[in-house]
């Protein structure tokens, strides 16, 4: 068996019990593979990466990774991540959250993280479980408006595209968001009679369009469809850099006063 291990395995914690905790067909594991491939492509050092999560199925991810990992309280991943990043801006901070963790209880923190544009890669795995009963909002539009410099949406079906989006998000200086639509065959799928994992994956395949295609569709045609791709990508000052500049100016001023 050792001869057959793919390179992904070197990013996993050998001491942790596998197979992982998620249900058969759950998309979270696909996101995990995507993150590994992005980190590998970027050549990041495991010691520099801090993977933070809140509470929920997606938030069970960090423990499986051989990085610095932090599994916090429901909704608070980005608040912890902000402390980590500001205390040591040299660390590469990635937050993985579910839709409830990021957008319900964590809604306030993700809005302010976007507002600050602090360099944290925020991956939201959206399986709709938290929004099941009520109408949702457009995550990407909201976070774009809040100030996130990179906003993208992918699905676990379109995994090659997802690999690219996550990599771009990680490279981006500033608060980057990737919303990943994912199947939950056990809860959302079963409750809404969407079939098993395979049916739900087909649903992602058939029910989504990329941004270029979406631009050609009318609002009626777009209704109920997932729009994939990079939805916002711009430059703006990053928080820890702004803060470092503030420190420099404060020190200069203080030394002036001394003199």
């Amino acid at each position, binding site marked *: 068996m050792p001869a057959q291990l793919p390179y992904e395995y070197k990013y996993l*914690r050998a*001491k*942790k019990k596998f197979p992982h905790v998620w249900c058969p067909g759950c998309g979270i594991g696909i996101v995990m593979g995507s993150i590994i491939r992005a980190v590998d492509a970027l050549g990041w050092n*495991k*010691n*520099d990466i*801090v993977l*933070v999560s809140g509470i929920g199925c997606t938030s069970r991810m*960090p*423990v499986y990774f*051989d*990085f*610095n*990992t*932090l*599994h*916090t*309280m429901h909704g*608070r991943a980005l*608040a*912890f*991540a*902000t*402390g*980590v*990043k*500001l*205390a*040591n801006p*040299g*660390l590469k901070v990635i937050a993985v959250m579910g839709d409830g963790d990021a957008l319900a209880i964590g809604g*306030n*923190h993700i809005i*302010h993280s976007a507002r600050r544009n602090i360099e944290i890669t925020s991956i939201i795995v959206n399986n709709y479980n938290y929004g099941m009963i009520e109408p949702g909002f457009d995550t990407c539009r909201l976070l774009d408006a809040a100030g996130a410099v990179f906003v993208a949406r992918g699905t676990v079906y379109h995994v090659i595209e997802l690999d690219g989006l996550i990599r771009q998000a990680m490279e981006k200086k500033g608060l980057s968001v990737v919303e990943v639509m994912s199947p939950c065959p056990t809860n959302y799928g079963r409750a809404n009679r969407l079939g098993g994992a395979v049916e739900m994956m087909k649903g992602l395949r058939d029910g989504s369009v990329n941004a270029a295609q979406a631009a050609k569709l009318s609002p009626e045609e777009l209704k109920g469809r997932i729009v994939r791709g990079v939805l916002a990508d711009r430059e703006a000052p990053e928080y820890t850099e702004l*803060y470092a500049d*503030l*420190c420099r100016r*404060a*020190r200069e001023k*203080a030394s002036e006063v001394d003199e």
Partner: protein
Amino acid sequence: MRVPWGETRLVQGNEAIALGALASGVNFFAGYPITPSTEVAEMLARSLPQGDGAFIQMEDEIASVSAVMGASLAGARAMTATSGPGFSLMQEGIGFGCMAEIPFVLVDVMRAGPSTGLPTQVAQGDVMQARWGTHGDHPAIVLCPASVRECFDLTVRAFNLSETFRTPVILLSDEVVGHMRERVTFPKCEEVAVIERPVPETPTEWYEHYHPTPSNVSPMATYGSGYRFHVTGLTHDRQGFPTRRRDEVDEKLARLKAKITRRLDELVEIRTHDVEKSSVVIFAYGSVYRSALAAQVQLAKKNKRVGVFRPVTLWPFPDMETKELLDDKDVVIVPELNQGQLIHEIERLTSDSVRVIPVQRVDGYELTPEEIVSAAMEVM
């Protein structure tokens, strides 16, 4: 703003907390303004950038305590400051810090509650909350200053204890101590000990983030140092991985408790004045201690001898000292700016023969020496 080492200054209580933090090497503050604690944040907002430390105003208190813990895990000496309503919001975070064994200092400058209460006025209503505010069985270290100089000293001690015991430490002040001004002669730099968390020496592959040791405190690595460990609020094993195995759960929770209960001699601090020879003792803490000392003087002028017993460490409560020193007294007077919180500990620890008399005030004003004197006169 720098620490005026060895100098004498007129200083505000909250300002002294900020200075104590700086003296202790604080390099991270995340908080949200709230009366009557805001001065701590304001002063550190100015000082930290000058010293290459990080200051951030987070969107709320929950985010503040979370950011503080994230920073501590990344190696910072981190703190936050708040009052009642913010303290309530931080409870879940405090529990996380206890479970995950993350050092940080949390300052609560108490104001009158409950709820929004009297934002600019004094009370001592958070004493029980400081011990049991967060759910589950958890240790608590809570220090209570009664003077401006102690705001400085106990902040230094709070940081040292948090790093030594790998746990959050609460500095429980009150609006009077926080806002009063006193003349303080600061210690010299070399007189202030700064204790850092124990660092691991094991090879990285063998590192256990929660390794049992004789002191019950495991050396603590930092994110980015080469040790890659997992931190979670789920009950976990020595590696930090979630577990439901009964032996592992028991080991973790027992060690969390023993961290404190087996080292009381290092934690518990009291002050006593003339307790041994008095049959009537006033038990007071925080700003009320100052009134108690004044009451003692007034009573002496009336030829009435009383002792004063003050816990500096509110939690762990000085059980042994209370029992030893107060169990043979006729009367223990307990003035508190609440409807009776620490009084229950005294009642628990003293036999029925000791008469425990409450003197309580919750209208937002300081307990005066005269009120304490009058309670004493009734029994003497």
